[in-house]
């Protein structure tokens, strides 16, 4: 921490106070944003923090002027939070910021126009980020982390303030996305349901009115929820929206969307081109796509094992594992094509023995009963059209379209 003289400290604090009050008087939202973005670690804020730690009695400065004392409560909390933040006391920084945020939201409510909406966004962002830092601190000290959960409650409160008929309502989607990030981090994704319901069914909201960046983020998170719930067509719609509307320069975000969209597309029988996987460094899906193209069950198995941890963490493991049936379908088709070439007259009759031989080659030892079982499942799920001639141990394929394409529909569960 740099050395600051009392005089200099006094000057810096007064400057901030003036800037803050000017910003409010002249409805200058962008200045207000800069004054509140603690996590940006901007030089002016850091030097203010140093000044506060030297001066110590900033409340006396606030009291000195009517102009400043009008926002006395808010400013006292801001200063306390910034001071604590600077010396690494993150729990205290969070608590003070929370008090500030509550007071700020009260003022915001009273301002008729939506001029301070962007500043409110900054407050929402900062409260979440500070809460995360505070929780990390608590955890590392063996204490129970509960600040992020508290931040979530505050964000819900802000949502409530914005969920009205006036111009402030376009801010609701930003707050929703902060809530999503909070709930996803906490693992309490079920709590997303109530905000989603509000956004999608409340009459005051028109989804198209929201800023595009918020719509993209919203579709990304709700798309991920659809993946968890295995609603693949809905997941496809939402994640594709996010992909198509995302700023193309934001490659990390695009990669995240694709990380969930690729398994969804695969479940619908659609394959990403190699170029796409390469461009966005999605190499974990390369072998899976190859396995599907070839009908190579052994490769699928290896691919799932190789990146098991990664797939488990992102929650797509089960989605990818279920691709096995589609890989089986592809393999059966290859066996059928082979037979058409070597024995066209009996092409539509696949011997279970032949299938077992192919599976053994792929390191899957199965007796004929097990093979029959798999074929039954494939037929039941409409991946194979035909029937089992049990006595002759043969699958009789339909002459027309024996291996129906998924055509954008997931395999029936």
């Amino acid at each position, binding site marked *: 921490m740099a050395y600051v003289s009392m005089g200099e400290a006094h000057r810096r604090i007064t400057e901030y106070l003036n800037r803050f009050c000017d910003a409010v008087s002249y409805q200058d939202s962008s200045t207000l944003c800069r004054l509140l973005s603690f996590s940006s670690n901007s030089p002016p804020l850091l030097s203010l923090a140093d000044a506060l730690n030297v001066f110590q009695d900033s409340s006396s400065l606030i009291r000195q002027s009517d102009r400043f004392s009008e926002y006395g409560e808010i400013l006292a909390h801001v200063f306390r939070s910034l001071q604590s933040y600077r010396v690494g006391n993150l729990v205290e920084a969070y608590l003070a910021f929370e008090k500030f945020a509550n007071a700020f939201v009260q003022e915001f409510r009273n301002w008729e126009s939506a001029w301070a909406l962007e500043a409110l966004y900054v407050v929402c962002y900062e409260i979440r980020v500070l809460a995360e830092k505070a929780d990390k601190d608590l955890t590392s000290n063996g204490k129970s982390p509960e600040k992020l959960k508290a931040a979530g409650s505050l964000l819900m409160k802000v949502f409530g303030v914005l969920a009205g008929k006036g111009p402030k309502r376009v801010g609701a989607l930003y707050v929703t996305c902060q809530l999503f990030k909070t709930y996803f981090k906490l693992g309490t994704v079920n709590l997303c349901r109530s905000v989603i319901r509000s956004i999608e069914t409340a009459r005051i909201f028109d989804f198209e009115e929201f800023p595009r960046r918020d719509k993209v983020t919203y579709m990304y998170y709700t798309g991920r929820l659809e993946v968890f719930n295995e609603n693949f067509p809905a997941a496809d719609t939402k994640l594709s929206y996010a992909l*198509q509307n995302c700023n193309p320069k934001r490659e990390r975000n695009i990669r995240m969307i694709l990380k969930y969209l690729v398994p969804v597309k695969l479940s619908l029988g659609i394959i990403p081109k190699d170029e796409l996987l390469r461009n966005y460094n999605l190499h974990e899906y390369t072998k899976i796509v190859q396995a599907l193209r070839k009908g190579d069950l052994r490769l699928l198995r290896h691919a799932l094992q190789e990146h098991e941890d990664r797939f488990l963490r992102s929650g797509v493991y089960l989605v990818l594992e279920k691709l096995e049936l589609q890989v089986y379908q592809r393999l059966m088709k290859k*066996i059928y094509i082979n037979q058409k070439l070597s024995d066209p007259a009996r092409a539509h009759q696949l011997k279970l023995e032949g299938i077992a031989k192919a599976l053994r080659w792929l390191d899957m030892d199965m007796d004929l009963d097990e093979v029959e079982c798999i074929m039954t499942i494939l037929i039941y799920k409409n991946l194979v059209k035909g029937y089992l001639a049990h006595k002759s141990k043969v699958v009789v394929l339909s002459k027309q379209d024996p291996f129906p394409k998924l055509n954008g529909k997931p395999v029936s569960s």
Partner: protein
Amino acid sequence: MAAEPKAAVEVVKVDLFEDDDEFEEFEISEDSLEKEEVKEVSQQWEDDWDDDDVNDDFSRQLRKELENGSEKK
């Protein structure tokens, strides 16, 4: 989603539910962008990949296996 299914302690829970894929914040100014670039990304899917071509290595090896009646390698 997590490798460890049962988290008895709150402390451990925080690590387990770290969301690796938190979307990065967009700036407000990012809303105006060219549609052209974005279209390129969405034209990277194939839905007609399921062809009858059996000239790849895998298919040829499969054919050999089925015709030879050989034991598992």
